[in-house]
């Protein structure tokens, strides 16, 4: 019975992380996206803490702490301040309609379940489901990066992708702490780099809409050459 409850709570927490991935796709305002992202990171922290408790692996508490402090607090607050300072347009422009993206998201969930289940046939049920959910979070993060034009939302998509990776890492028994730490810090570094990029892009183009950058792409810029 206790085993069953452990499983159910872990399962529910990982599915709620997945739900916040969909919430990220559903939002129409940048502030809403950041709030949803903070809540997703909170859920990741809760999932990690629960795994630490149920696997009796104290180092996972460190993962939970990193997720809580860095991704649920520092990154969203910092991104909000950047947006305030830049004073950019706060509505989200989408490449595909919201409903279409959501449907694509469900397709990705089904795809990752179909992918993971045959591969991880021999492992425990919890590991298998966790991997499937983590993979779908990663794929939805990628989907968000593809379908949103604004640079801020692309960064959030990247970070939610990383949330999926952390979720996969805590679900698998015996993942060393070093790996998780390196993932967490590399994301933080990436976030700082992105932050600098925001200012650069903004300075040059007066907008964070990446559409304006596309004319500089190699394959389209051919006719500019002499």
């Amino acid at each position: 019975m206790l085993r069953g409850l452990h499983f159910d709570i872990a399962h529910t927490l990982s599915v709620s992380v997945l739900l916040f991935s969909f919430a990220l796709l559903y939002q129409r305002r940048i502030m809403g996206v950041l709030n949803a992202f903070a809540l997703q990171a909170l859920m990741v922290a809760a999932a990690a803490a629960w795994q630490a408790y149920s696997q009796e692996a104290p180092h996972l508490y460190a993962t939970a702490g990193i997720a809580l402090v860095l991704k649920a607090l520092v990154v969203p607050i910092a991104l909000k301040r950047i947006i305030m300072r830049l004073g950019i347009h706060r509505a989200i422009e989408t490449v595909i309609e919201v409903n279409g993206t959501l449907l694509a998201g469900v397709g990705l969930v089904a795809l990752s379940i179909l992918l993971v289940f045959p591969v991880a046939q021999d492992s425990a049920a919890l590991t298998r489901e966790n991997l499937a959910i983590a993979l779908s979070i990663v794929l939805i993060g990628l989907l968000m990066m593809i379908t949103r034009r604004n640079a801020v939302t692309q960064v959030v998509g990247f970070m939610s992708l990383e949330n999926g990776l952390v979720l996969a890492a805590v679900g698998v028994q015996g993942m060393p702490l070093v790996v998780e730490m390196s993932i967490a810090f590399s994301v933080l570094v990436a976030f700082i780099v992105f932050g600098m990029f925001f200012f650069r892009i903004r300075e040059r183009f007066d907008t964070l809409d990446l559409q304006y950058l596309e004319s500089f792409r190699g394959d389209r810029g051919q006719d500019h050459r002499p």
Partner: protein
Amino acid sequence: MIAAAIAVGLQLGQLLLVLLLAPLLTGIVRKLKARMLARKGPPVLQPYRDLAKLLRKEAVVAENASWLFRAAPYLMFALLWLAAALVPTFTTRLPLSAAADLIALVGLLASARFLQALAGVDVGTSFGGIGASREMMIASLAEPAMLMVVFTVALFIHSTSIPAIAEFVLHNDVGLRVSFALGLISLIMVAVAETGRIPVDNPATHLELTMVHEAMVLEYSGRHLALVEAAQMLRIMFYMALIASVFVPWGLAGQGARIEDVGIGVAAFLGKLLAGAVLLAIFEVSIAKMRVFRVSEFLGVALLLGLLATIFLYVSQSA
């Protein structure tokens, strides 16, 4: 003989219970909302007084209204009363339990909605038409989502009968099921859309371009309006009772229940209704109404959650 008399008594009690409590439920939600917005609000019993007043008033019918316009309120009211009375509220041992099938209930609600939309376009005013067309748009999106939830529950329990589902949840250690959690959220979203609450429709407004339900019933007055309003109150009651009996059936008097158990069942049902009213009021004051064209996204999410619930049901079952 005595058993049969008790059974019929319970069924009649259930019929009266839902009918008598529905206005009170609406009154409590209105009062709570008003208090949360730092207003005094109308008394809790105000909906009863409104209905009584409307029943005494003369019913004015437009000149070009057909028989359908006059018949629709009675039929709607009857359909919704039946639907609300079929859901097990305090006991699963009712004579009409056999008819309390989820798909049949979806059908009853759809028929009521169909009649309402027809009555809305019958008089030929522009408001009735726009309300009916929006109502149909919402219905066409909400019904698939609701059916997805029904299918999820039916796949898991192998039954669409609500008493059977409630008994199953009561007597088996279901645990914390992700599919059920997703289904619950989806069903709540559908309920919000179908009962015309904020963020889909504003129940407190009468003249606004975004209204849906009020636009359809704008032409009604007197006893017709009373029936339409009562039907709307019964609809809220129906969804609360449905969610309570499928997802939190604890307290329901089940097989071989004694008279004390029925008492406990009624008390538990009242408690669940009060909790539902508080949650609905908090939900409604904390968000704003959305644009009509965003409703499709809102209900798209409900459908998506239903789909995810089904997907994860298969995942957990194969585990």
